[in-house]
């Protein structure tokens, strides 16, 4: 089992969700985060230009069984890109190992609980 964490742009959440549902990856947890990467922002406050800072992003966490990793990653890649070639700021995907997964309601464990 793996835990896939993707940091994406806010405006892509709906599309990513729709793509994931289409790929039958329905279970998901999302969080409001702020991040800083390559992306440069231009912000105006009564005319003042300020240094790039933390930009609002959305973090998506999906726990999957190993065989679903590629499908999920591909779907994320497709859904989260701006334009065909992507743009800086489109985000990052991290994959980490997951040792156990437990469904609270039933107590089921492991791959069937994901």
């Amino acid at each position: 089992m793996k835990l896939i964490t993707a940091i994406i742009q806010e405006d892509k959440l709906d599309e990513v969700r729709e793509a994931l549902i289409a790929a039958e990856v329905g279970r998901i947890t999302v969080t409001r985060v702020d991040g800083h990467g390559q992306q440069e922002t231009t912000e105006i406050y009564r005319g003042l230009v300020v240094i790039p800072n933390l930009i609002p992003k959305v973090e998506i966490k999906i726990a999957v069984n190993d065989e679903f990793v590629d499908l999920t990653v591909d779907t994320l890649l497709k859904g989260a890109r701006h334009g065909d070639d992507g743009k800086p700021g489109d985000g990052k995907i991290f994959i980490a190992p997951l040792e156990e997964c437990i469904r609270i309601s039933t107590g089921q464990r492991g791959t069937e609980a994901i």
Partner: protein
Amino acid sequence: MRQQKLTVIAAVLLCMVGVAHAAEGSPEVDTGTTAWMLTSTALVLLMIPGLAMFYGGLVRTKNVLGTMMHSFAAMAVVGVLWMVCGYSMAFGPNILGGWFGWNPDYFLLKGIDTTITDAGIPEYVFAMFQGKFAIITPALIAGAFAERVKFRGYCIFIALWSLIVYNPLCHWVWASDGFLFEKGAIDFAGGTVIHISAGAAALVAAFYLGPRRGYPKTAMHPNNLVMTLMGAGLLWVGWFGFNAGSSVESGLKTAQALTVTQVAAASGALSWMMLEGLLHKKVTTLGFVSGVLAGLVAITPAAGDVLPWGALVLGMVASVLCYFAIEMKNKLGYDDTLDVFGIHGIAALWGAIGLVFFLRPGAGSGSFFGQLWVQTEGALVSLAYSGIMTFVLIVFVDKVFGFRLSEADEKAGMDHSLHSERGFGMLNLNS
């Protein structure tokens, strides 16, 4: 058909049109009436931020500022236009066969600097009070296409709409030589002029501009119902100025209008609460404030001419009608986002026509059916004129300047794509 009871506003205006008052012989200022009309002007102005809060709370987080700006922008755009030429078009004497009015003295409000009306208030006050109505009407429409229009297109649209739809309608119903006024249509505080016309415009706009991306499949939650409640509170308070101020006096008629306004708002809310309680076993706060609005809109045309128990019934029934109108919209599937037609349109239609059943003895023309017909006629004229002209304007603005937001901008949200700002910086860690 002549009738005894003319609406109060018009009576006040009778002498203002045509003859310019010379300083001598002009009426005295009544400080009390002036005080109340000044206050009413402030109260109606308060409705604009109230509306901004009401609407702003109902959209998604990414559109909160853009939606509030729809209300605020009307203060700037229509605020200036009204002073330049709106007042003249609405309350000047007939030109172009009565399409609208014009009085060169009213241009830039330059000829009324010292005019006192027969009601005992400086004409400026009347002009400003009426100006607030002109501001709020296009702002109401904005709810129909919330979350999906360009700001520039919107500003141009409301400017044109104000000039071509609102000012003529206002002239017809409230100017002493307006054709609906002459027929004896009762529209105390603007059911026909304001709410029916805004409702019709909303319906047309919602159909022409199409639904938001994802509607109705995707859930679109209100970002801040708490703010919507606050806004509803301010609207209720401001409506006292709206309706009771429309008496253009500070006396019995004013008191009657205020009383029925309060009663209809309360009964509208109670009725919606009970309906939801019956149907869903739950009472929502959004339902509550929708009921308040329904009651307030329904009483608006009727405020000077019905008795309290009539207001009770008008408000109760308004909520029921609006409730099912919205159900109907959900079935039909068009996206009148904040239910401008479903609430303002329906409740005002009901109020404008239904008021005939609850008239104070002596109010209205002598005959029940005569009045019923006049009311219906007024409502239909407003519906048709506003509907058709809105369609023309919207097509024009859309083709020439662009009205509907691009899909990418709609997804990003108006706050970011149109205003480069975020409503709730506190949600993020960089503020």
